């Protein structure tokens, strides 16, 4: 079996680990204990495995681990290290945007990256921005409210 190494930084920490050519970034990250990256469909159709790679959101189930060699990845766990990330977490918790919580890591990563680039969206824009992340519990309202609340803070 052909083995390769991937070297990348995840949440600011250097990771170097073996992988196989066909291993998805999702499987690779989960194998390396980043279990906050969730596996919902493995076809890029639910968004629970969303991570940020070089400032872009990516569904990690539809990217080869090897393609991320040398890149900078952020998962939901890394959000605590960033001011906007912490504010989003706070807002999700206080707004009641979390029910079963399984979509939350992907959802909040998507929101973080979106607000980084669009600090002052309205609710309709937020809905579009998270339309690649499915949620079955909340009906999205409190998720949109939580993200919007942070956007409103941004105006101050």
């Amino acid at each position, binding site marked *: 079996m052909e083995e390769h190494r991937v070297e990348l930084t995840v949440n600011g920490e250097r990771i170097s680990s073996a992988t196989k050519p066909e291993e998805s970034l999702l499987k690779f990250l*989960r194998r390396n204990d980043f*279990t*906050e*990256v*969730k*596996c*919902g*469909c*493995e*076809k890029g*159709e*639910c968004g*629970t495995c969303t991570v940020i790679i070089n400032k872009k959101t990516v569904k990690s189930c539809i990217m080869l681990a090897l393609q991320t060699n040398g890149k900078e990845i952020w*998962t*939901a*766990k890394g*959000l*605590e290290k960033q001011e906007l990330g912490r504010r989003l*977490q706070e807002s*999700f*918790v*206080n*707004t*009641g945007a*979390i*029910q*079963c*919580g*399984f*979509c*939350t*890591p992907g959802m*909040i990563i998507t929101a973080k990256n979106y607000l980084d680039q669009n600090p002052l969206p309205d*609710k309709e824009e*937020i*809905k*579009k921005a*998270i*339309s*690649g*992340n*499915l*949620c*079955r*519990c*909340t*009906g*999205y*309202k*409190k*998720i*949109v409210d939580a993200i919007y609340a942070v956007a409103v803070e941004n105006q101050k």
Partner: protein
Amino acid sequence: MSEFKVVGKPMPRDDAWAKVRGDLKYADDFSLPGMLYAKVLRSKYPAAKIISINISKAEQLEGVRAVLTAKDVPHNETVTRFGQSLEVGKGFEGLYRVLADKKVRFMGEAAALVAADTEEIAEEALDLIEVEYEPLPGVFDPIEAMKPGAYLVGEKNTNIIGEFGCGQGDIERGFAEADIIIEDTYKVPFVDHAYLETEGGIAWIDDYGVINIRVGSQVIEHFRDVADVLGLPHNKVRYIGTMMGGGFGGKEDITVETYLALLTWKTKKPVRLVYTREESILCHSKRHPFVMRYKVGARKDGKLNALDAELISDAGAYPYLSPWVTLYATVNAAGPYCIANVRVKSYCVLTNNTFTSANRGFGAPQPNVVYESLMDELAEKLNIDPLEIRRINCLTTGKALSTTGQIFKTHVALPEVAEKAWAALGEPTEFKDENKKIGRGLAIGLMSYGRMTFLHDSSRSFVKLESDGSVLIRSGIPDLGGGQVSLLCQIAAEELGVPMSRIKIYYSDTALTPLAGTTTATRQTYMSGNATLKAAREIRKRVINKAAELLNVNPDKLDIINEKVIVNYDQSQYLPLVKVIKACNTAGIELFYVAQFNAPFTITPDLSNIRGMTFPDFTFGAQAVEVAVDTETGQVEVLKLTTCYDVGKAINPLSVEGQMEGGSIYGMGYALMEEVIMEKGITMTPSYAEYIIPTAADVPEVKAILVESGGGLGPYGAKGIGEPACSIIAPAILNAIYDAVGVRIKNLPATPEKIIRALKKDFFKK
């Protein structure tokens, strides 16, 4: 007690931080050293005879640790239960086959299990298992399956596995006296729960030979069923329930647990099994399709005076909970209306489709689609406003359910909820696009919370005050995302005057926590809420009595607030809670208590003519929508959505709103886009690209209106909301579509094509 301190306040959930940080370990996030990976071999045919299974090649593959087939399962044929420990009659305990044996009943039925060193090896081993099938014709339509001489799905001589009836009055006379009669047949499809977390778990054998199963399950009481399959004493199987990534009824039946137990038992190693999305859609239970023939009669003034309903549910390949679901539908068939003459007959039928079982709503949403559509048809024909006709006919406090005659002793918030939901739509949306027509729809409904009373339901909870004033709760309650666990903390915090941060709860572990019963039937707020309330109040009493002694005041003058026992007429007089606890400990007064709460018990009714109480209580609600229908493409956009329920008391408004908002969208998907399409038993929609659920871009802003009558049987007068929240929206949307373009959809989902076929009949003729 004085006014609430914690209850009724919007509360960030106990589990929210772990979830938002990604720290929470769901079933698939947990590993053990030396763990094996399991895969399931699934039947390629919906109906076939298994001639032979050859596993020798798979066994020889390096890294394969076990390959199991039906013959390796000690008790392969058992019965499905859902946690009940009492006899409820054979009618409800259908055959449950762990691994397919001789006859395959549905496509994707498990035929063999593999455990191997890696997932890849396990998958490769599946390809090496040789199964020789002899395909059989099968039957895929419940109506066909009911006919004499139909293909027999199981081993019995009929496919009908449940037959129920109820009603009152004289149906013939009722129709004779009606000024108007409407007769129609409605159909609803298979629906998937589509929770983001697929079914999964891990099992291991501990030092003492106990099989531990860490799994996302709504029913940890299944430890008994797993033990029975292996022929072990019940105390040799332990369930450790994880927080679930959504349940909605789909994790109510056994999913991976038995497979895990068998494989870990065989290999003596930890084993993990997690379904792929395809597997989940293909092989776990679905919501029941129903064929519903209705006939309703009313007088000119709009008063209903006759309803005759025949309900036929597709149970799929195995009974599971189908008889129960059908029974729920039967009792719900006449909706929240007073009708003097009612007859309901229902059948539950096996087919070679994927098996159906619990799905949020449990038999309430299906008939609701019909009776609420028919109410609007009547309203139109009699030229009465949709809200008015519901006012004229709806149940009120003290009235009786028209199907079973169960009397509503608790508050019935009708027509109040309907008026509020309807009014909340506000001014009609202005629209410029001439191809889009605006329409509005209203629907009301009821759904039980708590299990059927003849199941003699009960729940237990352990509450303890630690010597430092922190609180420990132990409850078997599983949490599927609704905040069930956090709710118990809130109740204890309220009663014992300590902040949420000082409360720790251990939940969902059959070895450590008193069994709280299943997180199903919208029962946990009611059942485990009351059990926890009872336990907490017992501790509270003991603390207050001791404090009264020390302060030398009358106990009823004392309250516990912010960890102080305070004299309520003189706040300067108090004792720190910790001090009182010390005094109790010194005096040998126990500050822990296990309480059991029992629901009302009734005897099993005559199922052919169900009368009297079958449920502890019901939740009443109404939903209204405004839609825009594209008259050229048939696309429907929901512009406004309001939902109003009498929740009795919202213990945590954030969670209650969450259920109402989420339930609305769950139901909106049912109305507009969701269908597990099966062609001759083959699932055509095994992915999120084919089984589509609403995205954030598809949803309107849901307006949730909470009515708090305080009239519920739960703690502080709370009612259950989880399932009722999703059970009414579909017909509201259908009514709105009709209002917009005059098309009455009688076959969910209301896809653009169905609407266009009705609008452009002449085009589709050619």
